């Protein structure tokens, strides 16, 4: 093949790569490792594809309005009926990890006219958002069903190998 032909082939290949049919799907077609609580628990392997299927491709179920879909809750719709998709609809882009840190507190409480002052932190957002639906659909709801405890976690909860010896019955002085 001549140099001109190779260059043309290269260009064609590059064009093919960026064509709509060969682009990857939405940037979230993977399993996410959520490991914010790694001091107590192992990370959660979050299968996003499975959840897209489970919700019937209704992004609102988990992403509220940030994926460009309109919410159904009448309280939300008043403001967010036509809210567009945002650049990064991941949970952590809105729900901060250390919600009670000084600068985040300041933002929440001192911003005048802020509506969602009590926006949950990241940890709470996951739990509040996931648990309800999980319960309704027989999905895992126990703490260690989604994330196993680390050794530090077992120490924290005084469980597993750190569990206390079962006490024989009887009154502890004063604790009647």
């Amino acid at each position: 093949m001549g140099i001109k032909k190779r260059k043309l082939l290269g260009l064609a290949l590059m064009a093919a790569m960026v064509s709509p049919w060969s682009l990857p799907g939405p940037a979230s077609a993977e399993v996410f490792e959520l490991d914010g609580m790694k001091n107590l628990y192992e990370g959660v392997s979050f299968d996003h594809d499975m959840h897209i299927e489970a919700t019937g491709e209704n992004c609102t179920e988990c992403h509220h309005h940030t994926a460009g879909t309109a919410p159904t809750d009448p309280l939300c719709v008043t403001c967010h009926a036509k809210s567009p998709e945002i650049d990064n609809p991941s949970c952590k882009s809105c729900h901060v990890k250390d919600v009670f840190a000084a600068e985040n507190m300041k933002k929440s409480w001192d911003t005048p006219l802020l509506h969602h002052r009590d926006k949950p932190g990241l940890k709470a957002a996951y739990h509040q958002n996931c648990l309800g639906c999980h319960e309704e659909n027989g999905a895992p709801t126990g703490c260690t069903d989604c994330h196993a405890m680390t050794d530090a976690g077992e120490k924290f909860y005084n469980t597993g190998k750190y569990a206390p010896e079962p006490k024989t019955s009887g009154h502890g002085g004063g604790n009647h």
Partner: protein
Amino acid sequence: MKSFVAQGLRPVDSLMKPESTTEWTLKEKLLLGLSPGDYLKQLVRNPFNWIFAIIYAIGVPVILGRFYYGLGWATHGSYDYPWGLFLGWGLFCMVPLSASGFMLGTTVELFGRKDFKPIERLGLLNGLLGYLFAVVFLQADLGQPWRLIYPMVVSLGPAAVLFLVAWHVATYLSVQVAELVPAASEMMGWKAPKKFVKSIVLGLTVAGIILSTLHQGALGALFTYAPGKVHPLWYSYSFQWFHFFCSSIFAGLSMLIVVSTLSKGFLKWRCDSNFLDSLDRITLGLAKGASLALITYLIIKLTAIAHDNEWALLFTGWGQWYIFEICLGVLLPLFLYTVAIRNQSAKIARFAALIAVVGILLNRLNTALITFNWQMYQEIPHWREVTITITIYATYILVYRACLCRLPILFTWKADAK
């Protein structure tokens, strides 16, 4: 002692030995004028002392255990029921019964009723010992009794009612000790202390009235901190302090009648004619005072119910218990005292006094223990708690007896012609 006196022993009642120019030594005075051998003999012969011996045999190890193992071992004190018998009995029951101190002091020194003088010192002693042992009970109850003086010198919390109780009991104990200094001075042969106290007796008496009014009331006010916990019939945030203060008046007077009766019965050898001959008349006089306090108390109790509109509660189970307490502790003594006064019967008055004392115990135990946490389970004191309470109370009786036998309380000290 009775038999010794019958055999001709003259009880110590002056600085000089009878028909002699030698003085009693302190040791002899303490041994009631007996030789050590005889003293022990009469101790052993007395059946009451056998009861005390049994009480101490059981009680002393338990008291030691309380301080070694802590309150959790000795009481059923719990997070829900922090106070038990030590305070319920030792503080809340004994203090109103010891109100005779300020009552008699006021009657004799302030109101000038010298006709009550024969019983004045008994009233003062009753008061002093009652408060002293209330403090002993308190020390048994406090978690850290060695910190007793903290509210006075280390860290003050003046808004608290207990602060007032602490300061007043401490000050009042001093007042009462001072008021009994004349008796001790006579026995010991001191001149100056007696003279000094006599010169400030009016001030002491007024101080005694102020302190007593406030701390008797304050003990009641302690329960105003727990509006939901004490049953509404026993609770009144407006009148609680007055309930306790007013009832302490007839409690002190009735207890004095009871104690004087016991003294007349068991320590007759120690009483002189000045005491014995006037006792019936004095008893009726005390009965008059007690009945006035009783009727006042009854009216204020009913007013408190009206004030908080609690009439409907009288028809509940607790209401029946309340009616029982009023009938036994207020109406019955009031009726009996009135009958006694009308018929000039000291005997009936004494019986009324006993009932009144029981009524006071019932009221205080009801407020502090029985109706406390009425909406919760009932708490029964631990047997160790009961044992310690009995032991400390037995000590109180022993000390009381020891003082009555030695100090010129039931008898007049003979002034020696020098």
